[in-house]
């Protein structure tokens, strides 16, 4: 069963993760006011660089962004099947090349990686070079903007920051919100 339409209410499944259950289920922080930026991803740059550099220039290092559709010269994405090694519930697949691709809609979160460098976590729906519509985790360094700029709506996350940290429950590093410490 991959996809089924049913009249019966399905029973949600509770999966067992490798690490200890964390009693805190929602980690949240807020900014007192939303700050928005309209960004254009410029032709020839990667999705990663097109987001990270212009936003860093205006002091934004944590943000939630919406990619409003556009063409890329090359896109690679991953899907998330069960982890055959058993280290986590799922593991990303090897990169799947999609070729020249239209990104229909994407969301990308900007934060900091474990080593403090910029990190972009992006999921998107895409139309691949073969015309198939697919979706998954986008490898943003591999996506090169085609000849037209791509608009992005940025919601800056001020007064706190997103940092990647090891999550013992799932046994993978994840973006989490922290009270802002040191800028840069």
């Amino acid at each position, binding site marked *: *069963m991959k996809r089924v339409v*049913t009249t019966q209410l*399905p029973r949600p499944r*509770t999966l067992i993760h490798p690490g200890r259950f964390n009693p*805190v289920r929602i980690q949240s922080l807020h900014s007192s006011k939303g700050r928005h930026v309209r960004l254009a991803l410029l032709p020839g740059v990667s999705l990663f660089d097109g987001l990270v550099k212009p936003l860093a220039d205006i002091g934004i290092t944590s943000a939630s962004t919406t990619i409003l559709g556009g063409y890329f010269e090359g896109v690679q994405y991953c899907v998330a099947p069960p982890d055959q090694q058993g280290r986590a519930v*799922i593991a990303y697949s090897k990169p799947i090349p999609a070729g020249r691709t239209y990104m229909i809609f994407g969301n990308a979160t900007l934060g900091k990686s474990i080593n403090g460098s910029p990190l972009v976590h992006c999921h998107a729906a895409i139309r691949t070079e073969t015309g198939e519509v697919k979706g*998954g985790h986008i490898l943003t360094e591999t996506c090169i903007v085609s000849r037209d700029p791509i608009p992005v709506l940025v919601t800056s996350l001020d007064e706190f920051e997103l940092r990647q940290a090891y999550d013992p429950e799932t046994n993978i590093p994840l973006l989490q919100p922290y009270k802002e410490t040191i800028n840069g």
Partner: protein
Amino acid sequence: MGEMIAVENGSMGRVAYARIAPNEDLVQGVEKLCLAEGFRNAFVRGALGSLVDACMGTIDGKYLQIQGPAVEIVSLAGEVRLGEDGSLRAALTGVVADPEGNVYGGPFVAGLNPICMTFEVTLEEWLPAK
């Protein structure tokens, strides 16, 4: 049932970001985020993550089930509204991708979309004019 209003004036307020943990429900998790942050009405500004399995409603009242794990959330929009009965209700719509990257779309059914690894969501508070 109250009178339907086509236009509601208001302004945007605070912005909240959350990481919601595995096995929590997507829709009710967003409602609980509003409880945690004191939001009464809000719009989703960005979201991504994964589900164990996905369940979406159909026009004839049935359920579209997509089997994971994981089913990736690749697009999500929606809002949270304060109801006349004083409860919070999130209405979320989106596109998901199964473990082979095939995509499906529709409204997420509350209580039937358990998070797989993580769910990242940004909400912007909506403050209706009095």
